[in-house]
């Protein structure tokens, strides 16, 4: 590669150098942590994705070194490329937070809030997003939009009621498979993902649409309602697969393999696409070579407990104050620091009596 110019971009008062052509979102992901805007529709591996959900809106307070004018509107960070000397405000901008809260509210008004019975709960991006930005109550007082469930073949179920129309599965099917498999029918808030007149999705790699779905609209019928994801232990494994890389994550309980998914990185994106055979048919431990535990940081519920904080080493530490500009963000993972009860440094087995609430008080005197 020849000399590629590096652009300096400042996001939430943290400066990072990225090659020309990088989007603001990817620059922010390079910084990591809370600086990275949430993305419900953008998927770095899918060409043309992004720009639709509007959760990644950021404020560009300085266009570039040459043209320092700010951009008048909030821009979708996943589709806006950086300029040299650009200054971006994400969580330090009240406008962005306000707009993002609005987008989350819009995404939720027609989304069924039945996470307890949804198969995606625990690894749902919308669930995470609404923890961070959603309100406790809804202002939407009407009936929610509903659809019938559809089976797209014998392995995948589509429940449009939960869909947020991110188009990821459409791009996946278009770009991974040879022919166009499905698309979007209708318009506006009655638009739906559909195959051509209820045809099945039939392709060796089509199972990946389950992995890219940010919500519970596309689910694996071989796993659906068999178990909750936070009860399962994710382990990395591989096998010699003739069609795909064979690098997967197994979700085990005891010795039993409940499901097989592709490996996802800290942004919830698939590292290597896997084929349907690996995903749906190889559910014996003997099919796989186990590599070790899979570390998960991105998702709310499955990341609780001992998985927390093991991935995502590029979080900004030294500039925490600068990032938040004095605000205290709601951090889902920091439950231990605010709870008086759930103190991890107290070992109950060392007590010679039933535990009392005073045992958990940090300052006992």
């Amino acid at each position, binding site marked *: 590669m020849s000399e590629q110019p590096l652009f300096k971009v400042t996001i939430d008062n943290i400066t990072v150098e990225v090659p020309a052509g990088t989007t603001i979102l990817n620059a922010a992901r390079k910084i990591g942590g809370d600086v990275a805007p949430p993305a419900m529709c953008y998927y770095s591996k899918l060409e043309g994705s992004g720009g639709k959900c509007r959760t990644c809106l950021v404020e560009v307070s300085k266009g570039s070194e040459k043209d320092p004018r700010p951009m008048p*509107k909030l821009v979708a960070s996943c589709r806006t490329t950086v300029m040299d000397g650009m200054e971006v405000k994400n969580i330090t901008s009240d406008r962005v937070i306000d707009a993002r809260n*609005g987008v989350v*509210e819009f995404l939720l008004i027609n989304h069924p809030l039945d996470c307890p019975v949804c198969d995606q709960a625990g690894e749902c991006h919308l669930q995470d997003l609404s923890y961070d930005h959603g309100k406790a109550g809804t202002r939407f007082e009407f009936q929610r939009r509903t659809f019938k469930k559809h089976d797209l073949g014998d392995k995948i179920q589509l429940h449009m009621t939960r869909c947020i129309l991110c188009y990821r599965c459409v791009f996946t099917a278009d770009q991974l498979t040879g022919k166009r498999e499905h698309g979007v029918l209708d318009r506006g808030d009655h638009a739906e993902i559909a195959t051509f007149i209820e045809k099945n999705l039939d392709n060796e790699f089509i199972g990946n649409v389950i992995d890219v779905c940010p919500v519970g609209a596309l689910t694996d019928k071989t796993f659906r309602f068999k178990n909750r994801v936070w009860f399962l232990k994710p382990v990395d494994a591989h096998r010699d697969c003739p069609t795909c890389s064979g690098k997967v994550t197994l979700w085990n309980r005891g010795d039993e393999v409940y499901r097989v998914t592709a490996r996802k990185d800290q942004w919830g994106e698939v590292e290597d696409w896997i084929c349907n055979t690996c995903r749906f048919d190889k559910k014996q431990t003997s099919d796989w070579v186990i590599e070790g535990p899979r570390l998960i940081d991105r998702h709310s519920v499955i990341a609780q407990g001992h998985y927390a904080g093991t991935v995502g080493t590029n979080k900004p530490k030294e500039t925490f104050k600068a990032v938040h500009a004095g605000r205290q963000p709601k951090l889902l993972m920091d439950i231990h620091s605010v709870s008086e009860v759930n103190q991890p440094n107290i070992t109950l087995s060392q007590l010679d009596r039933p535990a009392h609430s005073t045992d958990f008080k940090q300052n006992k005197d």
Partner: protein
Amino acid sequence: MGVKLLLDKAHVPGIRFFETYRKEGGYKAVEKALKQMNPASIVEEVKKSGVRGRGGAGFPAGMKWSFIAKPEGVPRHLVCNADESEPGTFKDRYLMEFLPHLLIEGLIISSFALGSNDTYIYIRGEYAWIVDILEQAIDEAHANGFLGKNILGTGFDCNIYVQRGAGAYICGEETALIESLEGKRGNPRIKPPFPAIEGLWKRPTVVNNVETLAAVVPIINMGGDEYAKIGVGRSTGTKLISACGNINKPGVYEIDMTISVEEFLYSDEYCGGIANGKRLKACIPGGSSVPILPANLLLKTAKGETRLMNYESLSDGGFASGSMMGSGGFIVLDEDQCIVKNTYTLARFYRHESCGQCSPCREGTGWMEKILKNIDTGKGKMSDIDLLWDIQRKIEGNTICPLGDAAAWPVAAAIRHFRDEFEWHVNHPEEAQKRNYGLAHYADPIHVPA
């Protein structure tokens, strides 16, 4: 009598056909442009004329033309946006129905200026009969050597194709139009890249409104400088206004943008006053998506100046006390019209026409419609009005294309100027079903902070 540049021959019998149009001086501009001028000088003339895009945004057409990328060996395209779907706007329909050759002439000149050998007219699907008119006109132009290979012996080839849309308002947005023209679902693209760099089939493309392209003909005939002398300030040339609603003489009028709104509304030459001797309550001056204005703010700006029918004057005062020229759909509401019902109707339209690609517009338009329906049918709550305001605020500016803004502005303006009518609907649910709130105090000037 104002200057007429586009519709001056509209009433000549048989002007729809090539022979009459030619006899009346048609296609002279093509001869002048192709034989005496070069593409750069045509673009220069259009720039000098200061003609602004007539489709709604009002972006200077010459400027748009000069942005087109010219990579070596890549064809460029001109697309004529005839997907006129804005409620209240029907000027392009009139132009294409009566003067198809004017559009064809403008298209040939513009294609020459931009270097487009394949030019497309993307026409609204509902204008089915106009497709036949245009295709007949194109055939006649072909037969007379104004289209096809080697036009007038200049070596310039140009073909014009008419493509019908399938009835989606969103396909009037230029990138959605391009997607639809490519045979895809009409979802607006994310900009940048703008069509001038990467448009139809990833080639540099210019998309212009019918009226803008038709205006190229008088610009070439009279010269850009002469054209710029008509009108006021940056509103040069003439503009077609399609007037409708509670007026005596609805129709398409050509104005030279120097007349006042009051004159346009009340003079017999134009709208002829409010129908049935009623009083003016409100007006949407530029097609359904621009903010509605109450009577007092329509005739005079907040500063007390007379409001003129041009881009600057109509938007004077910003959205707090002004509106927009938009696409020239002049919708007049008399004292019998209900603003809540009117707003509900518009919200229903935008809900139906939202493409569903980005979340604020997809979900927000539906939500606004539901709330407005509740208020209109007497089930509203006082908090709903504030909620509506909050929803429109969160849609505006946060969407991919301007449809989100277009859906938000009418609701915002209705609440801004007619909040007490909404409140009256909430407080008197039964009475609101029987009678209209009426004029109230809207004829009185409201105080607008400077």
